[in-house]
């Protein structure tokens, strides 16, 4: 009896220690940022009522005289509505909201506290991003009206309206804006929807006066009820899929897509230590797998958080310093007055789109959903020292079971095979005195979880609902029989 109490208390102490460790947000060790993905573009969208501010990144690599951008916009923009912003705004937002890896440390229940602190902070992957110009189309035709012409810093901008797509296409081609042949199939619907065309070229003379060769992002503002992202034009010159990362800022809550499903990526998953050096590959595989599982036509949520200046906790843990007032204003947020208690909600959406699965432009809505969300993957480093006490032996069993689940988790998330993971699984098994026992678990349920991507809470709820419905229906059956 005493031994039972002693064991229970030891387990409880261990549990509490682990719980307390889990309550801490974890040490940030790595992030999976946008640069991992080839063929990607980034857009900042700020929405306040019907006011839209859209900032488009431009990672064009090539001869600047070949650069041309065509973006459908719902209104004729004024010169004051167009500005050039610095490129680092995208890097800052990307760093801040990127999926992250964190680590915890187990404590040795036998009382050994010394452990090595590995220098594993702020480690990022090197990846070469080859972005493409967001839209690039050439057309020359009659029926084209130049509604406005502006010169904003290093860009020459035209706002065009057209009466028919052939005319617009001919005009653009004749004026040196090359667009792919397939683009005309979307020009006509845009023209019929009363869209104008924001057409951009680089002013080579002004570029010579600058000290750098890269193109800075363009930001446009306009007032319109439509809250959408015209992707179709960008699909015209692509055979496969492209990635787009949207950083959305709103006053009230999360932004979601209304004509495609918005799905959360898996988060808060425990993964093995060997994932750390290849976190970028892990996240890419996870994203690819989720993308395929959702039918290739979903928009994924990677981050959603209230980043208001007065809100002290912006992330858990934080990958970098939070955006400050000046940076929000740079991104297009215009409802901040001083540092008073206005809300800013930051949503990061990642969509991999292709012509076959995304035939229509993305439509969005702002919701009051203020639930915080971030993609977070957890490493737990085992305790150091000797495990010769009884609690230590039990800890080793727990460690073995946890590592089994971590390996299963990685396979479920990425599709990677378990080959080669035996070493990791059995690393501490040799320290166990008694026969190790595989944790008994139902093999059917994990498969069910994996295939349905749900958690235990969801299943419990399903059963509760079925039970409640059955009770109501069958109790009513008795009533019905009585009244007949």
């Amino acid at each position, binding site marked *: 009896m005493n031994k039972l109490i002693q064991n229970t208390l030891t387990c409880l102490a261990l549990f509490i220690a682990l719980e307390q460790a889990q309550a801490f947000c974890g040490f940030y060790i790595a992030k999976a940022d946008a640069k991992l993905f080839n063929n990607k573009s980034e857009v900042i969208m700020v929405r306040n009522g019907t006011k839209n501010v859209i900032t488009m990144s431009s990672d064009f690599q090539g001869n600047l005289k070949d650069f041309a951008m065509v973006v459908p916009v719902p209104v004729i923009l004024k010169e004051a509505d167009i500005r050039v912003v610095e490129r680092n705004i995208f890097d800052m937002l990307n760093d801040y909201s990127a999926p992250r890896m964190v680590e915890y440390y187990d404590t040795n229940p036998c009382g050994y506290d010394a452990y090595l602190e590995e220098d594993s902070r702020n480690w990022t992957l090197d990846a070469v991003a080859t972005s493409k110009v967001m839209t690039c189309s050439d057309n020359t035709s009659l029926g084209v009206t130049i509604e406005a012409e502006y010169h904003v810093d290093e860009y020459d901008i035209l706002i065009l309206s057209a009466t028919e797509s052939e005319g617009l296409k001919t005009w653009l081609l004749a004026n040196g804006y090359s667009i792919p042949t397939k683009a005309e*199939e979307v020009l*006509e*619907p845009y023209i*019929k*929807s009363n869209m104008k065309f924001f057409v951009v070229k680089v002013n080579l003379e002004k570029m010579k006066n600058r000290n750098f060769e890269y193109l800075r992002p363009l930001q446009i503002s306009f007032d319109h*009820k*439509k*809250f959408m992202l015209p992707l179709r034009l960008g699909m015209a010159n692509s055979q496969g899929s492209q990635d787009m990362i949207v950083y959305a800022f709103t006053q*009230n809550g999360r932004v*979601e*897509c*209304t*004509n*495609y*499903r*918005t*799905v*959360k990526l898996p988060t808060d998953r425990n993964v093995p230590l060997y994932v750390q050096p290849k976190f970028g590959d892990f996240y890419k595989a996870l994203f690819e797998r989720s993308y395929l599982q959702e*039918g290739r*036509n*979903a928009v994924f949520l990677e981050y959603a958080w209230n980043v208001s200046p007065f809100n002290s906790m912006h992330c858990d843990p934080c990958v970098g310093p939070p955006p400050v007032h000046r940076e929000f204003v740079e991104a297009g947020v215009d409802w901040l007055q001083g540092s008073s208690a206005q809300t800013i909600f930051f949503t990061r959406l990642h969509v991999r789109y292709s012509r*076959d699965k995304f*035939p*229509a432009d993305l*439509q969005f*809505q702002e*919701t*009051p*959903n*203020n*639930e915080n969300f971030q993609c977070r993957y957890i490493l737990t480093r085992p305790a150091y020292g000797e495990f010769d006490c009884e609690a230590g032996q039990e800890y080793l069993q727990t460690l073995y079971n946890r590592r089994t689940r971590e390996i299963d988790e990685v396979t479920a998330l990425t599709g990677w095979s378990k080959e080669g993971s035996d070493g990791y699984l059995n690393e501490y098994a040799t320290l166990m005195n008694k026969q190790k026992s595989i944790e008994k678990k139902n093999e059917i349920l994990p498969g069910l979880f994996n295939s*349905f*991507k*749900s958690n235990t*809470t*969801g*299943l*419990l*709820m*399903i059963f*509760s*609902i*079925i039970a*409640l*419905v059955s009770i*109501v*229906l069958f109790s*009513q*059956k008795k*009533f*019905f029989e009585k*009244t*007949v």
Partner: protein
Amino acid sequence: MNGTACQIHQNMAVKKQFEITRWLQSDGRHFQIISQVVFLCYGILALGWDADWRKYLAAFSGCMLAQLFAIRFAGVPSNSLKSALITSLGLSLLLKANSPWLFLFAALFAIGQKFLLKVNGKHLWNPANFGIVLIILLSGEAWISPGQWGSGALLVFIIGTGGLAVLSNIKRLETGVSFILTIFILEFFRTIVYLGWEWDVLFLKLSNGSLWLFALFMITDPMTTPNARSSRIVWSVAVAAVSFYLTNFKFINGAPFWVLFFATPFIPLFDHLIKSPSFHWMNKKSNVSLSK
């Protein structure tokens, strides 16, 4: 001897099966409840919705308690709990809110309206529609997600099957079909003929799960639609046309939902113009008046 015992056993099994089938078909709400539970399970398991049991429990308990209150004090029959269950499932499927309390209030609004806002002995609004719209307008912390189902043929098949079962039973197929057909025709002419988009753009719009759910389960609510068949068809077409306009020209998300709410007060006018008996859930055999 064995053959006789086997025969008796088989007869009993067939009889039991017949009884269960007869019971299921006796009330259209049975099919509706089954369909809604299937949709909820599909949404949670296959579509990966956020399944917050506290919100579902709040909706369920709010609806049940309000209905029990009405049964006790307003004299409505106890099988009306089935309607309350349908409302709670409707809230769970459609309403999104930051807090479970909002689900509770939506439930109370939904059920309360049935007894407090009656015209000609019939409650006006579809309870789920009323509860959701009111909580969205009053709280600012609730919303609906038109994109939560996605689009696709499988989705249409699942919702369509459930819808057909319900509507065939309650003889309200024309309401759902008129709505969907009007939307199809208007969207076809705008998307394909006028704008010149491709067929898959149209298919994406028309295979949206929210649209089908609305067409087969919400606008077809027999207790909150005009009594006469011709009125219902006109009503459906009107709601569809206005929804189409608001969606495409005013860019309002979830337009059918809002149109239904604001158009509902016109139903008594339709009933006044063309008179027809009201709908009752329990059919044929019962001699007891069971309107709720």
